[in-house]
C-alpha cells in the first residue's frame, strides 16, 4: 500500500500540528503554585539556648509603615500569629509574657501586599517595632533608633524583591552583639511569598500551610 504524496504531506502536517500544540510545556496554573517559602538562618546560631520567646500581638504592615500603599488584611492576624506560635511551641519553645518575664528571643511578624517592594535586608525595620514596649530589657531605646534595623548575618544572600503578598517571620536574639550599635541580630528569618488570589479562606489555608513548611524546612530550630 502506497500513499500519494499529497496525502502523505497532509498526514505529516497534521501530525506535526497536533503534537506541537498538544505538548505545550507546563506552566503555573493556580495561585497556590506561586507560593514560595524562603528561610535563612545565622550560620553558627545556637537555637538551643533560646528557650523562651515573646511574640507581639500584631502583624506590622511594612507597606503602610513605609508610607506606601498597601492593603494588608489584618482580619486574620490572630490566626496567623497563633499558627506561628504553635509551630515554635512544637519546636520546643515556651512563650512568656514580656510584661513579667524577659524572653530569650523575640519573634517578629510583618507583612506586605504591594508589588515590587524592596524589603527585608535593605529596610530599617526597627522603627516599625518601636511600639513594642519591652526593648528596655536589652537596653534599646525605641525613641532613639533612627536608621537602625535588624542585622541579618546571612546578608547579602537575600533576594530583596517581592511581589504580591509576603509574610515575614523573624526570630531576633537581642543578646547577640550586632556589628553596629542600634541593631539587633536576627538568627532566623522566613519569607512566605505568593499571589493573593482566591477566597480569604483559601489564602489563609495557604498561609497556614506555608508557615508549617517554613518550620518543616528549618529542623535546626528545635530546642531538643
Amino acid at each position, binding site marked *: 500500500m502506497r500513499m500519494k504524496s499529497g496525502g*502523505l504531506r497532509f498526514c505529516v502536517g497534521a501530525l506535526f500540528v497536533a*503534537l506541537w500544540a498538544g505538548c505545550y510545556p*507546563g506552566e503555573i496554573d493556580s495561585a497556590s503554585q506561586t507560593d*514560595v*517559602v524562603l528561610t*535563612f538562618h545565622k550560620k553558627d546560631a545556637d537555637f538551643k539556648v533560646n528557650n523562651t520567646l515573646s511574640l507581639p500581638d500584631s502583624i506590622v504592615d511594612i507597606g503602610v509603615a513605609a508610607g506606601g500603599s498597601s492593603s494588608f488584611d489584618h482580619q486574620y492576624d490572630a490566626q496567623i500569629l497563633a499558627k506561628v506560635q504553635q509551630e515554635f511551641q512544637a519546636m520546643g519553645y515556651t512563650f512568656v509574657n514580656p510584661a513579667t518575664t524577659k524572653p530569650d528571643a523575640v519573634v517578629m511578624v510583618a507583612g506586605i501586599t504591594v508589588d515590587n517592594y524592596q524589603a527585608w535586608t535593605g529596610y530599617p525595620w526597627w522603627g516599625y517595632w518601636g511600639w513594642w514596649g519591652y526593648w528596655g530589657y536589652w537596653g534599646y531605646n525605641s525613641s532613639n533608633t533612627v536608621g537602625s534595623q535588624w542585622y541579618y548575618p*546571612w546578608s547579602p544572600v537575600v533576594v530583596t524583591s517581592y511581589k504580591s503578598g509576603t509574610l515575614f517571620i523573624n526570630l531576633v536574639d537581642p543578646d547577640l552583639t550586632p556589628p553596629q550599635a542600634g541593631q539587633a541580630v536576627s538568627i532566623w528569618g522566613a519569607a512566605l*511569598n505568593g499571589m493573593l488570589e482566591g477566597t480569604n479562606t483559601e489564602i489563609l489555608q495557604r498561609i497556614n500551610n506555608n508557615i508549617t513548611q517554613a518550620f518543616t524546612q528549618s529542623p535546626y530550630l528545635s530546642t531538643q
Partner: protein
Amino acid sequence: MRIRISIAALALLLLPGVVVAQGRSKWFGLTWSMASPTQNSKDFVSDYSFRGLGLEWRQLRGTTSFGLALGWNAMNEESFRTSSADQADLTGFQFRYINAYSILLSGHKYLGAAGGPRPFIGVKTGTYYIDRRTDVGLWRISDNSWHFGVAPELGFTVPMAGNLEYESFYTTVRYNYALAAGDVPYQSWLSVDIGFAVRK
C-alpha cells in the same frame, strides 16, 4: 499563539515542493524531534521531551552528502521541591525549561541500495543557542548562551512512494553535545527525530 504555530508548520510543509523544483540531488527534511536530556541537562530537567522540530537540507553526492540542519528542542520539568544553599532553603513549585536551538553543518554516509531502506551515519557540528529558565513562585531565573557543539547521528530512510528519489520517511538518533560556555556547563541530550524528506 497556537494559530501562528500552526500556520508556520503548514508553511514549512510547502517548502519541499519548492526545493524539489530547484534541481537534483537535494534533500529537504522536516522532522518531529523528541529529546531525552542527559548529564548536566538532566540535572536541570529530567523529563523526556516530545516538543521539538528539525529542518534540514542536504546536498547528495553518490553515497555521501553535506548540508545544513536547524533544530529546536524544548525540554521542561515541573516539580515541587526544596532547594538549599548555604544557610538558605527555598521551597515551592519549580518550572524548569531548556530551549535549545541549533544551527549545524552536516555530513552523512549512506549504506544500502537505492530504492530500499537505507541506513546512514553522520555527524553535525556548529552552534547551539541554549536558553535555560527556572520559574519559582513569582520569580524567574534564566541564562542563555551560545555553545559550540557536535552531534553524531545514526538513521535510516524508507521510501514511501515506491521511489526513494522523491519522498521518504526517515528517522535519526542523535547525541547532541554542546560544550561549556561562560558559566553554563556543557549540555547534552539524545534526540530522536521522525519525519519525512523530499529528494530529487
